[in-house]
């Protein structure tokens, strides 16, 4: 007997657990379903209760500062959200942040994985240095970049620019979104690299050698062998990063608080500010629901894209 596991990316794997043995211990049999119950039950509640409440809240009048305001709100919460001057910037910022970080981390990750696929002196140590930023807590990353590197007067970049006679740049004042993208990319590039580097190591060496003997150039090998081999891993990276990047919060909270104006307010920060600063649970929940829908749309398209890619590769 075997179990077929379908991974999120659509691949079906067959594992061979030790399922062939007879359930010799009688009492074990009757307790078996219970073993799974706590895990399934708690995750079921985790999935259904908060989401159900978000949907419910988004259709009622619910403001913590104004308890008298109650009742069914129809689509009003969505209407207010829509009319909120921060709404469109927030959607746009979410998409820009997500898109830029995805492109940067995947492109740099792929190039670095290819580079590190070659042997060189001290490669293992260098690998540790490259993946290190992923283990730095987001609030530390954000503050170190903001205060020590990008600071317009004392920051290292300002000092470097000054020493060659160039004017300093107020990164968080003039290019706030760029600065946030820079920090978040620095945090997530190591993740992309680690996944892609792991994947590239399983590349068939013989195939590469054969191609090389046949006179294939580096470019040809990259586009014809390496990239197709990595496509699955890239898909996985994109999917996982998307889920996390839709909720990017700590970096914005500690650096810009969504500003200046709404320049770095993303959906996550908007929901926080509507719900936990202005205490309008109804409108904030409408925003939260939107984030869930956005995540599902992205996940749906990515899964389809990925499975199409897989079919084409075969």
């Amino acid at each position, binding site marked *: 007997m075997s179990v077929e596991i379908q991974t999120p990316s659509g691949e079906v794997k067959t594992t061979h657990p030790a399922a062939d043995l007879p359930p010799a211990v009688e009492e074990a049999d009757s307790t078996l379903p219970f073993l799974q119950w706590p895990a399934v039950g708690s995750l079921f509640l985790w999935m259904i209760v908060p989401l159900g409440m978000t949907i419910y809240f988004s259709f009622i009048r619910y403001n913590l500062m104004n308890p008298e305001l109650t009742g069914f709100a129809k689509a009003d919460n969505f209407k207010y959200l829509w009319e909120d001057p921060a709404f469109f910037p927030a959607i746009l910022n979410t998409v820009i942040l997500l898109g830029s970080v995805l492109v940067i981390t995947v492109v740099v990750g792929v190039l670095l994985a290819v580079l590190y696929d070659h042997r060189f002196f001290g490669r293992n140590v260098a690998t540790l240095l490259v993946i290190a930023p992923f283990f730095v807590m987001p609030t*530390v990353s954000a503050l170190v970049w903001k205060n020590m590197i990008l600071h317009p007067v004392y920051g290292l970049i300002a000092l470097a620019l000054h020493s060659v006679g160039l004017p300093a740049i107020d990164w968080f004042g003039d290019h706030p979104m760029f600065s946030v993208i820079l920090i978040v990319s620095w945090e997530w590039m190591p993740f992309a690299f680690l996944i892609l580097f792991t994947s590239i190591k399983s590349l068939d060496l013989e195939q590469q050698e054969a191609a090389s003997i046949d006179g294939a150039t580096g470019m040809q090998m990259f586009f014809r062998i390496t990239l197709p081999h990595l496509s699955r891993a890239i898909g996985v990276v994109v999917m996982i990063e998307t889920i996390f990047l839709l909720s990017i919060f700590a970096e914005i909270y500690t650096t810009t608080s969504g500003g200046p104006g709404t320049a770095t307010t993303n959906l996550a920060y908007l929901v926080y500010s509507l719900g936990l600063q202005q205490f309008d649970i109804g409108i904030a929940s409408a925003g939260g629901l939107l984030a869930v829908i956005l995540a599902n749309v992205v996940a749906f398209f990515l899964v389809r894209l990925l499975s199409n890619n897989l079919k084409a590769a075969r």
Partner: protein
Amino acid sequence: MSSHSFWYASSPTISKPLANVEDSRLKTWLIGIAGWLIALIVFFPIFWIAITAFKTEQGAYSPDLIFKPTLESFREVFARSNYKAYLLNSIYVSLGSTLLCFLIAIPAAYRMAFFPTPKTAGTLVWMMSTKMMPAVGVLLPVYLLFRTAGLLDSVWGLIFIYTLLNLPIAVWMTFTYFCEVPGAILEAARVDGASLMGELRDVLAPMSLPGISSTALLLIILSWNEAFWSINLTSAKAAPLTVFIASYSSPEGLFWAKLSAASLLAVAPIMVMGWLSQKQLVSGLTFGAVK
């Protein structure tokens, strides 16, 4: 096999002379230099934290690499800011959630690996899919539920959240480790009359412990660094280090030496753990989709 014809068609000479030895040596050098250069650039901010942590507050603003190291900032962080309370919260929350996670995950994985039903695969996929929920989508209900239950700003509250967040990873990883245990060994134990607990303790635990303990490292790292829920659900009493560091976003953050000292202490141990659990990180976060 169209790719093959492509290679042949585009290759001018099939019997290409072997690459010059000098050439390949130069190439190795160039690759090494590029690889190290990038590694140093990527690592630089962390290196800079470590350097600045040992400077005086006055010296912290100058980019000097040569200075007299001092532990002054560390002393001040400990003396002035109740650092120990935050540190303890981080330790409680990450260890507590990891323990609770395995308490729930190991029985489930045992059941799934050794007594699978037709539904097992579907259950696993469903568990993973719970991670597809963006945190911001459920922020308000969780906040309000916690407020009602008195779990706001409590260590237990964060432990519950992190347990739920990490549970799919724990079940999946434990399941894969259990699947690697040969069935014949379990059968032999059973024939010898081992009870369920005996089987778990004497056979399964020793065989899967290496894998499970490095998975534990991964879960500890994820909980330690989690900042969305900790910022939103805790303020003073139960705040872990992520929240403490966030408090430096006020003008106090301009005390670079102290910020660096506090950061270095918060980051260094976890980074070592991260380096040790690289493999688990890949398979745990991708649910085995990338090997």
